[in-house]
Protein backbone atom coordinates (compact mmCIF):
# COMPACT_ATOMS: atom_id res chain seq x y z
CA UNK A 1 0.00 0.00 0.00
CA UNK A 2 1.38 3.36 -0.92
CA UNK A 3 1.57 6.22 1.53
CA UNK A 4 -1.00 8.23 -0.41
CA UNK A 5 -3.49 5.35 -0.37
CA UNK A 6 -2.94 4.85 3.37
CA UNK A 7 -3.50 8.55 3.99
CA UNK A 8 -6.65 8.42 1.88
CA UNK A 9 -7.94 5.49 3.88
CA UNK A 10 -7.23 7.27 7.16
CA UNK A 11 -9.04 10.40 5.99
CA UNK A 12 -12.06 8.33 4.87
CA UNK A 13 -12.15 6.60 8.27
CA UNK A 14 -11.89 9.93 10.08
CA UNK A 15 -14.66 11.42 7.96
CA UNK A 16 -16.83 8.37 8.61
CA UNK A 17 -16.23 8.64 12.32
CA UNK A 18 -17.10 12.35 12.27
CA UNK A 19 -20.38 11.61 10.48
CA UNK A 20 -21.24 8.93 13.00
CA UNK A 21 -20.43 11.25 15.89
CA UNK A 22 -22.82 13.80 14.40
CA UNK A 23 -25.46 11.07 14.11
CA UNK A 24 -25.02 10.28 17.81
CA UNK A 25 -25.39 13.93 18.76
CA UNK A 26 -28.54 14.22 16.62
CA UNK A 27 -30.29 11.10 17.81
CA UNK A 28 -29.02 10.01 21.21
CA UNK A 29 -32.00 11.58 22.97
CA UNK A 30 -34.49 9.89 20.65
CA UNK A 31 -32.79 6.53 21.10
CA UNK A 32 -32.78 6.99 24.85
CA UNK A 33 -36.44 7.96 24.94
CA UNK A 34 -37.50 4.99 22.84
CA UNK A 35 -35.51 2.69 25.12
CA UNK A 36 -36.83 4.34 28.25
CA UNK A 37 -40.43 4.29 27.03
CA UNK A 38 -40.21 0.54 26.67
CA UNK A 39 -37.98 -0.36 29.62
CA UNK A 40 -38.79 2.34 32.18
CA UNK A 41 -35.36 1.95 33.65
CA UNK A 42 -32.62 4.53 33.36
CA UNK A 43 -29.61 2.22 33.53
CA UNK A 44 -31.06 -0.33 31.12
CA UNK A 45 -32.02 2.44 28.72
CA UNK A 46 -28.48 3.85 28.71
CA UNK A 47 -27.11 0.39 28.10
CA UNK A 48 -29.46 0.02 25.15
CA UNK A 49 -28.27 3.38 23.77
CA UNK A 50 -24.65 2.20 23.95
CA UNK A 51 -25.54 -1.12 22.38
CA UNK A 52 -27.60 0.47 19.62
CA UNK A 53 -24.88 2.86 18.45
CA UNK A 54 -22.15 0.29 18.80
CA UNK A 55 -24.11 -2.21 16.73
CA UNK A 56 -24.82 0.40 14.09
CA UNK A 57 -21.20 1.49 13.88
CA UNK A 58 -19.98 -2.05 13.47
CA UNK A 59 -22.57 -3.07 10.92
CA UNK A 60 -22.17 0.08 8.82
CA UNK A 61 -25.89 -0.22 8.07
CA UNK A 62 -26.32 3.40 9.13
CA UNK A 63 -24.45 4.57 6.04
CA UNK A 64 -27.26 3.44 3.76
CA UNK A 65 -30.35 4.22 5.85
CA UNK A 66 -32.99 6.44 4.32
CA UNK A 67 -35.01 7.42 7.39
CA UNK A 68 -32.53 7.57 10.23
CA UNK A 69 -35.11 8.15 12.95
CA UNK A 70 -37.22 5.18 11.93
CA UNK A 71 -34.10 3.07 11.50
CA UNK A 72 -32.69 4.01 14.90
CA UNK A 73 -36.06 3.62 16.63
CA UNK A 74 -36.45 0.19 15.07
CA UNK A 75 -32.96 -0.94 16.14
CA UNK A 76 -33.48 0.44 19.64
CA UNK A 77 -36.89 -1.17 19.90
CA UNK A 78 -35.52 -4.58 18.98
CA UNK A 79 -32.62 -4.33 21.41
CA UNK A 80 -34.87 -3.07 24.20
CA UNK A 81 -37.34 -5.87 23.54
CA UNK A 82 -34.63 -8.39 24.46
CA UNK A 83 -34.33 -6.78 27.87
CA UNK A 84 -38.02 -6.39 28.44
CA UNK A 85 -39.43 -8.72 31.09
CA UNK A 86 -41.68 -11.27 29.47
CA UNK A 87 -45.32 -10.28 29.57
CA UNK A 88 -48.44 -11.62 28.04
CA UNK A 89 -48.09 -10.26 24.52
CA UNK A 90 -51.02 -12.18 23.10
CA UNK A 91 -53.66 -10.92 25.42
CA UNK A 92 -55.52 -7.80 24.45
CA UNK A 93 -57.50 -8.02 27.65
CA UNK A 94 -56.99 -5.04 29.86
CA UNK A 95 -57.39 -6.13 33.42
CA UNK A 96 -58.86 -3.02 34.88
CA UNK A 97 -59.14 -4.41 38.36
CA UNK A 98 -55.45 -5.20 38.54
CA UNK A 99 -54.51 -1.67 37.55
CA UNK A 100 -56.79 -0.01 40.01
CA UNK A 101 -55.14 1.05 43.22
CA UNK A 102 -56.37 -0.29 46.51
CA UNK A 103 -58.18 1.99 48.97
CA UNK A 104 -55.07 2.77 51.01
CA UNK A 105 -53.02 3.36 47.92
CA UNK A 106 -55.69 5.71 46.56
CA UNK A 107 -55.72 7.64 49.76
CA UNK A 108 -51.94 8.08 49.65
CA UNK A 109 -51.56 8.61 45.95
CA UNK A 110 -53.42 11.72 45.02
CA UNK A 111 -51.24 12.25 42.06
CA UNK A 112 -53.35 11.59 39.01
CA UNK A 113 -50.30 11.46 36.77
CA UNK A 114 -48.72 8.59 38.60
CA UNK A 115 -52.09 6.83 38.55
CA UNK A 116 -52.19 7.13 34.79
CA UNK A 117 -48.61 5.90 34.62
CA UNK A 118 -49.60 2.77 36.47
CA UNK A 119 -52.53 2.34 34.09
CA UNK A 120 -50.23 2.62 31.12
CA UNK A 121 -47.92 0.04 32.67
CA UNK A 122 -50.88 -2.26 33.06
CA UNK A 123 -51.87 -2.04 29.40
CA UNK A 124 -51.22 -5.05 27.16
CA UNK A 125 -47.67 -4.73 25.84
CA UNK A 126 -48.59 -4.32 22.18
CA UNK A 127 -50.95 -1.47 23.06
CA UNK A 128 -48.51 0.09 25.50
CA UNK A 129 -45.70 0.11 22.94
CA UNK A 130 -47.80 1.88 20.33
CA UNK A 131 -49.08 4.36 22.89
CA UNK A 132 -45.70 5.30 24.35
CA UNK A 133 -44.02 5.53 20.97
CA UNK A 134 -46.79 7.85 19.80
CA UNK A 135 -45.96 10.12 22.73
CA UNK A 136 -42.42 10.62 21.47
CA UNK A 137 -42.52 13.85 19.49
CA UNK A 138 -39.74 12.88 17.13
CA UNK A 139 -41.68 9.93 15.69
CA UNK A 140 -44.65 10.17 13.34
CA UNK A 141 -47.14 7.36 12.70
CA UNK A 142 -45.21 6.08 9.67
CA UNK A 143 -42.01 5.89 11.68
CA UNK A 144 -43.82 4.15 14.54
CA UNK A 145 -45.19 1.63 12.04
CA UNK A 146 -41.68 1.06 10.69
CA UNK A 147 -40.34 0.68 14.21
CA UNK A 148 -42.90 -1.92 15.17
CA UNK A 149 -42.85 -3.56 11.73
CA UNK A 150 -46.56 -3.21 11.19
CA UNK A 151 -48.88 -1.16 9.00
CA UNK A 152 -49.90 2.35 9.83
CA UNK A 153 -53.52 1.17 10.01
CA UNK A 154 -52.65 -1.32 12.73
CA UNK A 155 -50.77 1.38 14.60
CA UNK A 156 -53.77 3.69 14.49
CA UNK A 157 -56.18 0.94 15.56
CA UNK A 158 -54.01 -0.08 18.51
CA UNK A 159 -53.49 3.52 19.50
CA UNK A 160 -57.24 4.15 19.56
CA UNK A 161 -57.79 0.96 21.53
CA UNK A 162 -55.13 1.87 24.07
CA UNK A 163 -56.54 5.34 24.58
CA UNK A 164 -60.07 3.99 24.86
CA UNK A 165 -58.99 1.55 27.57
CA UNK A 166 -57.17 4.28 29.45
CA UNK A 167 -60.18 6.60 29.24
CA UNK A 168 -62.51 3.95 30.59
CA UNK A 169 -60.19 3.10 33.43
CA UNK A 170 -59.52 6.70 34.31
CA UNK A 171 -63.24 7.51 34.20
CA UNK A 172 -63.99 4.74 36.64
CA UNK A 173 -61.24 5.84 38.95
CA UNK A 174 -62.30 9.48 39.01
CA UNK A 175 -65.96 8.56 39.44
CA UNK A 176 -65.03 6.27 42.30
CA UNK A 177 -63.11 9.09 43.95
CA UNK A 178 -66.00 11.49 43.52
CA UNK A 179 -68.41 8.92 44.93
CA UNK A 180 -66.22 8.57 48.03
Amino acid sequence: MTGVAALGEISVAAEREARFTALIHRNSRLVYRVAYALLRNKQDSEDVVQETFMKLFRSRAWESMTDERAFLARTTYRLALDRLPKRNFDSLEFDVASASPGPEQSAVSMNMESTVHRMIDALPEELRQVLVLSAIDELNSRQIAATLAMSEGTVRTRLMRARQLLREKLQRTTRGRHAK
Partner: protein
Amino acid sequence: MQNNESDELEQLDRRIDSALTSYVDAHPSPNLEYRVIENIHRTAYRKSRFWQWAIATPLLAVSLLVVIHYSVSRPASVGAPSVRSKDGSTQSTTTTVGAPSLRSKGGTDQSPIAKVGAPSLRSKGGTSKTLTEKDSSSFHSKGWLTGTPPQSAATTSVLTLHDSALVAFARENPEQLHALFAKANAPGPEPLAPIRIDDIEIKPIATEDLP
Protein backbone atom coordinates in the same frame (compact mmCIF):
# COMPACT_ATOMS: atom_id res chain seq x y z
CA MET B 1 -75.77 16.28 29.07
CA GLN B 2 -73.80 15.55 25.91
CA ASN B 3 -71.70 18.64 26.52
CA ASN B 4 -70.87 17.41 29.99
CA GLU B 5 -69.82 14.04 28.58
CA SER B 6 -67.67 15.58 25.88
CA ASP B 7 -66.10 17.93 28.41
CA GLU B 8 -65.33 14.99 30.63
CA LEU B 9 -63.79 13.08 27.70
CA GLU B 10 -61.70 16.08 26.74
CA GLN B 11 -60.52 16.40 30.29
CA LEU B 12 -59.65 12.72 30.38
CA ASP B 13 -57.73 13.01 27.11
CA ARG B 14 -55.81 15.99 28.45
CA ARG B 15 -54.90 14.02 31.56
CA ILE B 16 -53.84 11.05 29.47
CA ASP B 17 -51.74 13.22 27.16
CA SER B 18 -50.12 14.98 30.07
CA ALA B 19 -49.37 11.70 31.79
CA LEU B 20 -48.08 10.20 28.56
CA THR B 21 -45.75 13.13 28.02
CA SER B 22 -44.27 12.73 31.46
CA TYR B 23 -44.23 8.95 30.98
CA VAL B 24 -41.81 9.14 28.07
CA ASP B 25 -40.07 12.33 29.14
CA ALA B 26 -36.76 11.07 30.33
CA HIS B 27 -33.34 12.60 30.10
CA PRO B 28 -30.20 10.60 29.74
CA SER B 29 -27.09 11.32 31.80
CA PRO B 30 -25.37 14.44 30.50
CA ASN B 31 -22.27 12.55 29.46
CA LEU B 32 -24.03 9.64 27.78
CA GLU B 33 -23.24 10.87 24.27
CA TYR B 34 -19.57 11.22 25.10
CA ARG B 35 -19.46 7.81 26.70
CA VAL B 36 -20.96 6.32 23.56
CA ILE B 37 -18.50 8.19 21.35
CA GLU B 38 -15.60 7.20 23.57
CA ASN B 39 -16.66 3.56 23.43
CA ILE B 40 -16.84 3.68 19.66
CA HIS B 41 -13.45 5.38 19.41
CA ARG B 42 -11.95 2.79 21.69
CA THR B 43 -13.40 -0.01 19.61
CA ALA B 44 -12.26 1.55 16.37
CA TYR B 45 -8.77 2.20 17.78
CA ARG B 46 -8.52 -1.36 19.08
CA LYS B 47 -9.45 -2.64 15.64
CA SER B 48 -6.93 -0.43 13.85
CA ARG B 49 -4.24 -1.32 16.37
CA PHE B 50 -4.90 -4.97 15.68
CA TRP B 51 -4.38 -4.39 11.96
CA GLN B 52 -1.26 -2.35 12.61
CA TRP B 53 0.21 -5.21 14.59
CA ALA B 54 -0.99 -7.76 12.09
CA ILE B 55 0.95 -5.94 9.38
CA ALA B 56 3.91 -4.82 11.46
CA THR B 57 4.72 -8.16 13.07
CA PRO B 58 5.50 -10.10 9.87
CA LEU B 59 7.38 -7.08 8.52
CA LEU B 60 9.51 -6.91 11.64
CA ALA B 61 10.14 -10.64 11.51
CA VAL B 62 11.21 -10.47 7.87
CA SER B 63 13.47 -7.47 8.57
CA LEU B 64 15.05 -9.31 11.49
CA LEU B 65 15.66 -12.38 9.33
CA VAL B 66 17.24 -10.24 6.63
CA VAL B 67 19.53 -8.55 9.15
CA ILE B 68 20.53 -11.91 10.67
CA HIS B 69 21.12 -13.40 7.25
CA TYR B 70 23.19 -10.41 6.19
CA SER B 71 25.29 -10.43 9.35
CA VAL B 72 25.93 -14.20 9.03
CA SER B 73 26.82 -14.20 5.36
CA ARG B 74 28.96 -11.03 5.48
CA PRO B 75 32.64 -11.78 4.76
CA ALA B 76 35.29 -11.06 7.39
CA SER B 77 37.25 -7.83 7.23
CA VAL B 78 40.44 -7.68 5.26
CA GLY B 79 43.54 -8.25 7.33
CA ALA B 80 41.78 -9.88 10.25
CA PRO B 81 43.05 -13.28 11.21
CA SER B 82 40.27 -15.76 10.60
CA VAL B 83 39.63 -19.27 11.78
CA ARG B 84 37.34 -21.65 9.97
CA SER B 85 35.04 -23.56 12.25
CA LYS B 86 33.58 -27.03 11.82
CA ASP B 87 30.38 -25.89 10.24
CA GLY B 88 32.34 -23.95 7.67
CA SER B 89 31.53 -20.48 8.94
CA THR B 90 34.33 -17.99 9.21
CA GLN B 91 35.53 -16.80 12.59
CA SER B 92 37.09 -13.43 12.41
CA THR B 93 39.13 -12.19 15.34
CA THR B 94 38.97 -8.58 14.22
CA THR B 95 35.91 -6.60 13.22
CA THR B 96 35.68 -3.58 11.03
CA VAL B 97 37.12 -1.26 13.65
CA GLY B 98 39.64 -3.76 14.85
CA ALA B 99 37.62 -5.31 17.61
CA PRO B 100 38.07 -9.05 17.82
CA SER B 101 35.00 -11.02 16.93
CA LEU B 102 34.20 -14.62 17.66
CA ARG B 103 31.42 -16.47 15.93
CA SER B 104 29.99 -19.34 17.89
CA LYS B 105 28.70 -22.66 16.52
CA GLY B 106 25.26 -21.19 16.01
CA GLY B 107 26.75 -18.55 13.76
CA THR B 108 26.16 -15.64 16.12
CA ASP B 109 28.66 -12.89 16.14
CA GLN B 110 30.53 -12.25 19.37
CA SER B 111 32.42 -9.03 19.30
CA PRO B 112 34.09 -7.70 22.42
CA ILE B 113 34.04 -4.19 21.00
CA ALA B 114 31.15 -3.07 18.89
CA LYS B 115 31.50 -1.45 15.49
CA VAL B 116 30.78 2.00 16.86
CA GLY B 117 33.21 1.57 19.65
CA ALA B 118 30.89 0.48 22.45
CA PRO B 119 32.19 -2.85 23.68
CA SER B 120 29.51 -5.51 23.68
CA LEU B 121 29.28 -9.27 23.88
CA ARG B 122 26.38 -11.26 22.49
CA SER B 123 25.66 -14.43 24.35
CA LYS B 124 24.25 -17.68 22.96
CA GLY B 125 20.71 -16.58 23.73
CA GLY B 126 21.23 -13.47 21.62
CA THR B 127 21.31 -11.06 24.55
CA SER B 128 23.83 -8.29 24.27
CA LYS B 129 26.13 -7.34 27.13
CA THR B 130 27.84 -3.98 27.02
CA LEU B 131 31.40 -4.13 28.22
CA THR B 132 32.87 -1.64 30.61
CA GLU B 133 35.97 0.40 30.01
CA LYS B 134 37.81 -2.05 32.24
CA ASP B 135 36.88 -4.92 29.95
CA SER B 136 38.02 -2.93 26.96
CA SER B 137 41.41 -2.17 28.52
CA SER B 138 41.70 -5.84 29.40
CA PHE B 139 41.31 -6.71 25.76
CA HIS B 140 43.90 -4.12 24.84
CA SER B 141 46.33 -5.54 27.38
CA LYS B 142 45.78 -9.02 26.03
CA GLY B 143 46.87 -7.84 22.63
CA TRP B 144 43.57 -8.22 20.81
CA LEU B 145 43.94 -4.94 19.01
CA THR B 146 47.56 -5.52 18.08
CA GLY B 147 46.53 -8.47 15.94
CA THR B 148 47.98 -11.14 18.22
CA PRO B 149 45.07 -13.00 19.72
CA PRO B 150 45.61 -14.57 23.12
CA GLN B 151 46.46 -18.22 23.38
CA SER B 152 43.20 -19.10 25.08
CA ALA B 153 41.16 -17.85 22.16
CA ALA B 154 43.23 -19.82 19.69
CA THR B 155 42.96 -23.00 21.67
CA THR B 156 39.25 -22.72 22.18
CA SER B 157 38.61 -22.20 18.47
CA VAL B 158 37.46 -25.21 16.51
CA LEU B 159 39.84 -25.96 13.63
CA THR B 160 39.64 -28.34 10.74
CA LEU B 161 42.15 -31.17 10.53
CA HIS B 162 44.05 -29.34 7.83
CA ASP B 163 44.27 -26.18 9.96
CA SER B 164 45.30 -28.14 13.03
CA ALA B 165 48.08 -29.84 11.08
CA LEU B 166 49.35 -26.50 9.87
CA VAL B 167 49.28 -25.06 13.38
CA ALA B 168 51.09 -28.09 14.78
CA PHE B 169 53.72 -27.84 12.10
CA ALA B 170 54.23 -24.16 12.82
CA ARG B 171 54.63 -24.79 16.55
CA GLU B 172 57.04 -27.67 16.18
CA ASN B 173 59.21 -26.25 13.40
CA PRO B 174 59.30 -22.52 13.82
CA GLU B 175 62.69 -22.21 12.12
CA GLN B 176 61.54 -24.14 9.12
CA LEU B 177 58.42 -22.04 9.00
CA HIS B 178 60.46 -18.84 9.10
CA ALA B 179 62.67 -20.22 6.36
CA LEU B 180 59.64 -21.02 4.27
CA PHE B 181 58.22 -17.55 4.84
CA ALA B 182 61.59 -16.01 4.04
CA LYS B 183 61.84 -18.01 0.85
CA ALA B 184 58.34 -17.10 -0.10
CA ASN B 185 59.02 -13.44 0.57
CA ALA B 186 62.54 -13.45 -0.89
CA PRO B 187 63.00 -11.22 -3.91
CA GLY B 188 63.11 -13.09 -7.19
CA PRO B 189 65.91 -12.96 -9.78
CA GLU B 190 66.75 -9.72 -11.50
CA PRO B 191 64.28 -9.01 -14.20
CA LEU B 192 65.68 -9.49 -17.68
CA ALA B 193 66.64 -6.39 -19.51
CA PRO B 194 64.62 -5.78 -22.58
CA ILE B 195 66.32 -7.08 -25.71
CA ARG B 196 67.38 -4.29 -27.92
CA ILE B 197 67.66 -4.88 -31.54
CA ASP B 198 69.50 -2.29 -33.52
CA ASP B 199 67.94 -1.00 -36.63
CA ILE B 200 68.83 -3.13 -39.58
CA GLU B 201 69.20 -1.67 -42.96
CA ILE B 202 68.07 -3.90 -45.72
CA LYS B 203 69.34 -2.81 -49.06
CA PRO B 204 67.63 -3.70 -52.27
CA ILE B 205 69.16 -6.57 -54.12
CA ALA B 206 71.47 -5.37 -56.93
CA THR B 207 70.67 -7.33 -60.01
CA GLU B 208 73.51 -5.90 -62.13
CA ASP B 209 76.11 -7.73 -60.12
CA LEU B 210 74.48 -11.05 -60.55
CA PRO B 211 76.16 -13.40 -62.89
